[in-house]
């Protein structure tokens, strides 16, 4: 496996090998799926839409519907207006969504299609039915990454929909960042436990982990409603989880509707979850209920019980910036040693932040944005680690190097647990500890000499 990968690291300036990111539009599609009765629409060649749908489907093992402008060479030359207008007409007629969320692709970006103008024209031409909406975001594939696309789509919801009716309501907006449907459910559960009235946007729970009830629902009973998206302008606070994925939308909402915001890290691990809980508590002027404190206490207990195994556990990890920030912090909390941390998404600021997180305990940790899995693999060949964490693609590295592997991030195409169980929150922390210790001990139980196999840990 990966037999061409050697330990000799050459500087690469032009060739990306085994990327740790994909392009913007899939992020916009994922975010749009978190809106109730929303049809994500890919304005470009139909291959983009096919690829995004396939990957999201393989990750979630659930239907992922989205439409495309199905560009051919003609559209690429003459512009995509006709295609988009036809698409809008077809979509509303056939699939009857409440809203279409158009995102661009590198193709329509390079052509320079003016989407707002096309939407305006469509409205004028009467192909947008009364009460229905078409919104858009620009998601050029040659900038940022899939996370940027998610952030852009979230920002577009605010730009197009959030309104101040004038009266501030006792409601908190929660922007979850790009996390799993199960994570979104957990983020809501925690907010409910703390007793805060909230709007979560977007919300893919019950949409991309929809129950099997023998029927197909194109628009499952889930997702943030348009009414909620509008009402966000009247909330008194936005808690934005994940600076990269949620920060821009929160900033936009503050600009547009004067809703102040707290941008927090994703609530993965003890401290990041504490910050989320504390923010909710302060927002709601309420107290943290005993049941939630006990969950927290069980996580602390598990960390303390396992700390001898977690101590100085050398971890190589790759993924998306927001995920990595919190996960690496959690690794530090549990006493593990992040050795190398890689994201494909560009981000100098992120690198600096990561250095700060590890400064005290792991000053030598390698942090690289705009890097790739191949680099991480080569680095590992030169620097031993005990564990690798990342999305499904990392399993090839783990296999090659015979190292324990914990799946984390997007996409996970070859396991099912991420669909059902959150990584965020205190329960998510326990899940991560379980995953890490299972991976490490499964290997030991298998490979250690007889006399080192332990009955107890």
């Amino acid at each position: 496996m990966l037999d061409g990968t050697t330990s000799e690291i050459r500087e690469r300036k032009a060739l990306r090998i085994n990327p740790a990111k994909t392009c913007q539009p899939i992020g916009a599609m994922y975010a749009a799926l978190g809106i109730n009765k929303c049809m994500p629409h890919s304005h470009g060649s139909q291959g983009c839409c096919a690829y995004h749908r396939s990957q999201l489907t393989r990750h979630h093992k659930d239907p992922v519907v989205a439409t495309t402008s199905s560009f051919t060479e003609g559209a690429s030359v003459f512009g995509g207006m006709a295609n988009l207008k036809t698409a809008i007409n077809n979509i509303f007629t056939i699939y009857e969504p409440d809203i279409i969320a158009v995102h661009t692709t590198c193709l329509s970006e390079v052509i320079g299609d003016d989407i707002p103008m096309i939407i305006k024209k469509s409205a004028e031409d009467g192909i947008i039915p009364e009460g229905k909406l078409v919104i858009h975001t620009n998601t050029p594939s040659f900038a940022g990454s899939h996370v940027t696309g998610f952030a852009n789509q979230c920002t577009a919801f605010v730009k197009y929909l959030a309104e101040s009716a004038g009266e501030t309501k006792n409601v908190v907006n929660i922007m979850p960042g790009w996390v799993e449907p199960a994570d979104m459910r957990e983020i809501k559960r925690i907010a409910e436990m703390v007793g805060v009235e909230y709007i979560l946007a977007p919300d893919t729970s019950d949409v991309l982990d929809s129950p099997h009830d023998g029927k197909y629902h194109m628009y499952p009973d889930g997702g943030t409603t348009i009414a909620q998206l509008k009402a966000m302008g009247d909330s008194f606070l936005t808690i934005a989880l994940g600076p990269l994925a949620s920060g821009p939308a929160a900033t936009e909402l503050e600009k547009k509707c004067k809703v102040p915001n707290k941008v927090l890290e994703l609530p993965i691990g003890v401290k990041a979850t504490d910050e989320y809980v504390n923010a909710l508590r302060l927002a709601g002027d309420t107290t943290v209920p005993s049941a939630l404190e006990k969950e927290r206490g069980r996580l602390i207990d598990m960390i303390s019980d396992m700390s001898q195994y977690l101590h100085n556990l050398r971890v190589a990890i790759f993924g998306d910036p927001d995920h990595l920030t919190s996960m690496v912090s959690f690794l530090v909390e549990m006493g593990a040693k992040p050795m190398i941390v890689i994201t494909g998404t560009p981000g100098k600021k992120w690198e600096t932040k990561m250095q700060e997180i590890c400064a005290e305990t792991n000053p030598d940790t390698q942090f690289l944005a705009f890097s790739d899995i191949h680099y991480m693999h080569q680095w590992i060949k030169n620097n031993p680690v005990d564990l690798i964490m990342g999305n499904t693609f990392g399993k090839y590295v783990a296999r090659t190097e015979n190292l324990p592997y914990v799946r984390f991030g997007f996409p996970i195409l070859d396991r099912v647990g991420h669909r059902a169980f959150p990584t965020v929150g205190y329960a998510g922390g326990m899940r991560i500890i379980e995953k890490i210790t299972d991976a490490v001990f499964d290997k030991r139980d298998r490979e250690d000499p007889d006399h080192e196999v332990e009955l107890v840990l």
Partner: protein
Amino acid sequence: MGRYGPDAATAREEMLKVYPRKTQRKRGKQMLVNENPATPAEIGANSRTVPGIITQRGCSYAGCKGVVIGPIYDILHITHGPIGCGWYSWLSRRNITKIRADGEVNFLQYSMSTDMQEDHIVFGGEKQLAAAIQEAYDEFHPKAISVYATCPVGLIGDDIHTVCRQMKEKLGINIFGFSCEGYKGVSQSAGHHIANNGVFKHMIGLDDSPVEAKYKINILGEYNIGGDAWEIDRVLKLCGIHIIGTLSGGVSYDEICNCHMADLNVVMCHRSINYMAEMMEEKFGIPWFKVNFIGLEGTKKSLRKIAQYFGDKELIDRVEEVIAAEMAEVRPVLDDIRTRTTGKTAALFVGGSRAHHYQDLFNDMDMQVIAAGYEFAHRDDYEGRDVLPHIKIDADSRNIEELVVTADETRFDAAKPEKKKALEESGFTFSDYEGMMRQMAKDTLVIDDISHHEMEKLIEMYHPDVIGSGIKDKYVIEKMGVPCKQLHSYDYGGPYAGFKGAANFYKDIDRMTSTKVWKLARAPWHEGGSAPAAEKEPATAGA
């Protein structure tokens, strides 16, 4: 009402009903009732997908890099473009392969890309591409590098072919590019054509080393999903027939360069590779005919035809022995399973040949195919190659290069066309393909580029026992309680080709059509009558 649901014409109307007028007209041409299988009606295949329709189709890049060239394991593949296209085509098509010798690298495990950034879009990406090729060479020292253009590359005017030529000269290895931008054509099909052209120009005929084997053939249009090519190879080996190149499943670069040394090309997936068969015949004189190793009947027929082509009694007898031995193994499996599958129904919507070939397997199982259609095929794949002269080339196809091929002065083997002619005179057919519709039952539905809406309606009306489709439909179908067999990836099962593959397929379909999992869908408190409190809450059922 037909036997398994509404009659096909009514069903067709029902599916079309919701569409806006123009879309209705367009889709209407792509949806036929197979009224007269012997003389198929004209279908509006290989035409643009209507924007806004939820389609299964992908793009030209997917057809070129993803399907045809991508599987060649020892070419280093570089996608020139933003990161997405290279990312999505990374190991996602299930082209399994084995390296030929220790020390070789299977580049399919790698995704390489120029990861174009905004400044490349603005100032051009040629330098980036040249540098990427250099870095790839330095890192891996491959024998060949292949470059794939993505949408923006064509628009900004990067000349990838010149870059490739220059780097080829500089590095002394084979380097070539494909202008397979995603917007070319109307589906993956354009990419297949572009790929065929490239393989023909840059690989075929590079190596004239003689191949020591009595019966030498190439399998064209076989991509080794789930190990199909290996099962075909296993069976052919038993017969004493040697495959030089399988284009392009589990194949090596060298094998492709050498494959013009074959006596015969047999074609599995007509859609994706008939160009190659034609061009190799023109240039080298190698005749071709269509085979089908999917399904027991097709496999037997194909083996016999190959044997007949070579004409040796020894081979003909050996083929019969192999068939007899293999059938003895698979028949009991089929006989058992058929007791459960007889009379069940299937529908197939996928690819450019599988929707046709897999009908044979369902026929083996005594299951009825009530509807079928391709994702990206052309009229000839539906109606047969006899329709070829009548197909009008539209704007979307016209911009795909048609190579002008002439006989190779030194390497054209005149004996082959002579042999072909002689065989044809004895009733043997070459360059033939009857298409899907001729094989389908009367009054079944034929739907090209089926849309999400049509699929939903089809299931509502017919509720088939199984549907063959792809990943984007799979969970839609299964939410409705109908098992879906992915015919692109085989749901990570397979092989399904040949004899052992057929047995695998029967078992999988038996499992899927016998599963009790769907019965779990309804909670006991929703079961009629027995649970009194259930009535209070119908709203939650579909929640």
